[in-house]
């Protein structure tokens, strides 16, 4: 049973001021089973964010279609929750109102909203910060709220576009554990875009590597590391072997992309 089906999805941006059109993404096929955690790994300009935005419905493919549970994606919707790299909490809403944004849009009852907010506040470890404004939170706390906000809608798939890219290394490590912990407790389809190899291995069940100019899928590598995963896994030999392999793949891509830029 395949839940997310990307078939022949390509994206060409029209040329700017008479320039040549740019192929951001070559026609691509990808299928994600309903409880899979897929990481998309690649250098800048490989079209990984473009692919994610097309799945989210925020960008339209030039060719191909995306279907989720058999229903074609025509625009953004609450069945596909998204966490952005930039901080996109609504600054005029408190943490709890941010998390409840989608529920209010859905018309959920006050009791259900309160319960759901409390559950996800707890899941992302933000107890005591419910009444804070985003401005009063650290970057890591803001992204935790953003994850809770996306999950509170109970989407079929969670889309994350380099969500920890702006965080410092230590916080990033903690955030990976937190996200993975949530997924291990309650399997959900996840599409996670990153350019950090360790991150891609640690959280993912499968890694889709992409290459640049034009953007396309290069390989799909399963991560056969047992769950639940502990951060010490990062220093295990299996992890290191996978990291070495991926480093080699991504490195050659990055060099090629850089020399053509």
């Amino acid at each position: 049973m395949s839940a997310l089906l990307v078939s022949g999805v390509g994206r060409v941006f029209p040329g700017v001021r008479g320039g040549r059109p740019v192929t951001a993404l070559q026609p691509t096929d990808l299928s994600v089973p309903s409880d899979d955690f897929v990481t998309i790994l690649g250098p800048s300009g490989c079209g990984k964010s473009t692919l994610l935005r097309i799945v989210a419905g925020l960008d339209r493919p030039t060719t191909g279609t995306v279907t989720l549970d058999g229903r074609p994606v025509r625009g953004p919707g609450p069945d596909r929750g998204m966490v952005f790299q930039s901080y996109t909490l609504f600054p005029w809403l408190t943490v709890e109102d941010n998390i409840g944004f989608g529920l209010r849009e859905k018309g959920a009852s006050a009791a259900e909203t309160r319960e759901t907010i409390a559950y996800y506040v707890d899941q992302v470890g933000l107890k005591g910060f419910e009444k804070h404004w985003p401005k009063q939170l650290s970057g890591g706390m803001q992204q935790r709220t953003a994850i809770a906000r996306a999950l509170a809608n109970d989407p079929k798939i969670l889309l994350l576009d380099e969500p920890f890219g702006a965080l410092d290394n230590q916080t990033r490590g903690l955030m990976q554990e937190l996200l993975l912990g949530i997924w291990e407790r309650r399997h959900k389809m996840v599409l996670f875009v990153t350019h950090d190899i360790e991150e891609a291995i640690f959280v993912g069940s499968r890694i889709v590597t992409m290459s640049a100019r034009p953007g396309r899928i290069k390989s799909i590598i399963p991560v056969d590391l047992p769950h639940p995963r502990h951060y010490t896994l990062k220093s295990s030999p299996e992890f290191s072997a996978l990291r070495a392999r991926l480093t080699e793949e991504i490195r050659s891509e990055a060099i090629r992309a850089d020399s053509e830029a």
Partner: protein
Amino acid sequence: MIRPFQPVSARARVALGLSFFALFVAVWSLATFGGFVSRTFLADPLTMLADGWFLLSRQDFLFDIGMTVWRVVGGFVLAAVFAVPIGILMGAYKPVEALLEPFVSFSRYLPASAFVPLLILWAGIGETQKLLVIFIGSFFQIVLMVAGTVGATRQDLVEAAYTLGARDRGVVARVVIPSGAPDIAEILRLVLGWAWTYVIVAELIGASSGIGYMIINSQALMATGQIIFGIIVIGLIGLVTDVLFKALNHRLFAWRFA
């Protein structure tokens, strides 16, 4: 030592602010009491105060102040009630912007004061004419500035709202308006200041009450003390409304100042 961007203490801030007022009055006193400027053209501070007292106690100047405040607030509120929604529509919906923006940009440069003779022909010299002058002066400015603010709404917030299930109306009501509200309040504060200029212009011609009417009457009497008193009253009212507006914004939009 003054260094760039170094903050000052709250007490020093108040003291410095007041000291410049003191300096201003001191220079004025020196010029008038010292005999450097003829009394015919510039009253000294004490004469100004005496004239002010005369206006308030004998000439029912409080009524004039009330009339002027009423006209400013009336014309301004009328303009804001229509201009803010139109500005929001223009900022959010590009076809509306394409339709209205050129005309509004053109109308913005039409001087409100130049409409006074025309408005007297159309609306007489009653209150309607005064309100219309302020309306014309404020309306187009508010529309354009609100449209600009709304047009600059952070697109990543709009996208986030869509992925959370918001539809077009929800995006306008729950993202565009709340995110722009503090700037819209700031625009209104700014334009209210301008409205004070238009009201005096409206009262200089064809009025029988108001601060502007008193000023034009005092000119005929060479009562410069009264004119200066009237101008200072306007300044004080402006200062007070400004402080109130700012305090209100801080309360309403606490998230921005947190």
